[in-house]
């Protein structure tokens, strides 16, 4: 081959590399822009009281704005509501999701498992607003009222497919030799699953749970139909409750409260970011 041809090929190689790099930069660009925008606008709202006090009334906020002061209050009612609903959703979705994922990994050839697997995909693709309206029909209507419980059911349904998939995928990549070694010692399937396979898969499953949490923590639509919102801090399960994403929506709709949007957004963003970083760290540690 002539030197010219080789040079040409190396040149094309370099060109490709540049194109790939530029496209990669373009796709992270919006991400960085979002982070920057929210950080810039929300940064000066973050204070201790922002996390400990409930949403101010529109009147108080208006007064403060007129007086040229900082808007009092914060998003504590939303944080408490989000945590309560997330907590309940996790309690239901984690065991159910892990068991379902275990089934899919162990019986992947059965017809039933194939159907379940397909439905899981379908559930993952279901628009959250539909999950909200369904939960409204199923939970809010029979219970005769909006509640934190209804909100947690909606979040739980949204978390399930992610936990199922991560459990299934992780169990499937665990070497078959471990399972066989456990069974070869005389253990029954359930014990080998509980003592050997699931512990070995813990890292992957936990990462999946964290990702599921960060997926649903910002969900607004399903909570509009179920949790509704509440302007003060509340701990009861059977009453309407607030959530951080719901607050962002409310702030947007109220000209007096609009300044609070950015603090709340920043909080959500940082929370999700932290969860993702932990998930990443765990996945890395587990892979070693």
């Amino acid at each position, binding site marked *: 081959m002539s030197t010219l041809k080789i040079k040409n090929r190396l040149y094309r190689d370099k060109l490709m590399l540049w194109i790939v790099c530029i496209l990669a930069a373009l796709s992270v660009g919006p991400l960085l822009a979002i982070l920057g925008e929210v950080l810039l606008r929300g940064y000066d709202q973050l204070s201790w009281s922002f996390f400990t006090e409930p949403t101010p009334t529109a009147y108080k906020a208006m007064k403060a704005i007129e007086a040229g002061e900082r808007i009092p209050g914060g998003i504590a009612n939303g944080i408490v509501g989000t945590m309560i609903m997330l907590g309940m959703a996790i309690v239901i979705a984690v065991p159910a999701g892990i068991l379902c994922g275990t089934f899919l990994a162990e019986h992947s*050839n059965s017809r039933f498992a194939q159907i379940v697997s397909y439905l899981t995909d379908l559930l993952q693709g279901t628009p959250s607003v539909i999950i909200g309206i369904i939960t409204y029909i199923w939970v809010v209507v029979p219970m005769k009222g909006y509640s934190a419980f209804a909100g947690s059911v909606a979040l739980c349904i949204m978390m399930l497919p992610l936990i199922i998939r991560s459990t299934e995928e992780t169990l499937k990549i665990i*070497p078959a*030799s*471990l399972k*066989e*070694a*456990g*069974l*070869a*010692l*005389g*253990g*029954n399937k359930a*014990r*080998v699953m509980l*003592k*050997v396979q699931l*512990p*070995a898969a*813990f890292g992957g499953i936990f990462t999946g749970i964290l990702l599921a949490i960060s997926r649903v923590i910002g969900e607004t639509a399903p909570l509009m139909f179920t949790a509704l919102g509440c302007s003060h801090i509340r701990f009861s399960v059977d009453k309407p409750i607030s959530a951080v994403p719901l607050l962002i929506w409310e702030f947007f709709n109220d000209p007096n409260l609009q300044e609070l949007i950015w603090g709340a957004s920043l909080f959500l963003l940082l929370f999700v970011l932290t969860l993702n970083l932990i998930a990443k760290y765990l996945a890395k540690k587990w892979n070693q």
Partner: protein
Amino acid sequence: MESVTPILEFKKTCVSYTKQTMAVKYVSATIEKNTITAIMGPSGCGKSTLLRAVNLMHNLYPNIRVDGEILLNGENILTMQAIDVRRRVGMVFQRPAPFPTMSIYDNVLSGFTLNGIKLSKAEKDATIEHCLKSVALWDEVKDVLNKKGTFLSGGQQQRLCIARALAMKPDVLLMDEPTSALDPIATKHIEELLLELQKEVTILIVTHNMGQAKRISSKSMFMYLGELVEYSDTETLFSNPVDERTKAYLTGKMG
């Protein structure tokens, strides 16, 4: 020769993965108690498949059929409960597979944990010490029993797996190329260990390595395309093979 006590008997044992093809064809053989029996043969000849039939590993895969009989102390394994058989027939795999989430201590006891058997602390300690001593690992790990088993070297891990299998006091120990993932020195240790262990347990070992079969086994099987071609004293098999195929394999013309 001493009196022969059969512990394991294959009677026209067949294993098939699909309806058309048999991986193991009508194997009949008697394994003597407290011996090491080597199963040799080229890749794909069915030696591992035969071995895995003994502890009913094939039950895990619904497509695999095992026919004929395999007798353990006169009882047909194929009609017994898998968990019962596996408690009496231990297995060591090709790649060392200590349970990664368990400490060395828990790995040795994992057979009991997995069978739901509770032991007192004293029983546990005694078992650990005895098993680890019998695989010559005690001196190396006695101070790090709480470390994960996966911290050990490959050879140590494999000895840990043997200790784990021995803890259940099996009648028969199946070994599926236990040294093929190990370096020569670790292999040598394991071989010496097996020679020592045959006093306690009957060993059936699949090996790719003819030298290994010659060094440690008293009886040898040669399998080819699923058939048991030849089965005799290791010395006889190596020095005076009857079948042409065995000769071809031993001289390196095949496999």
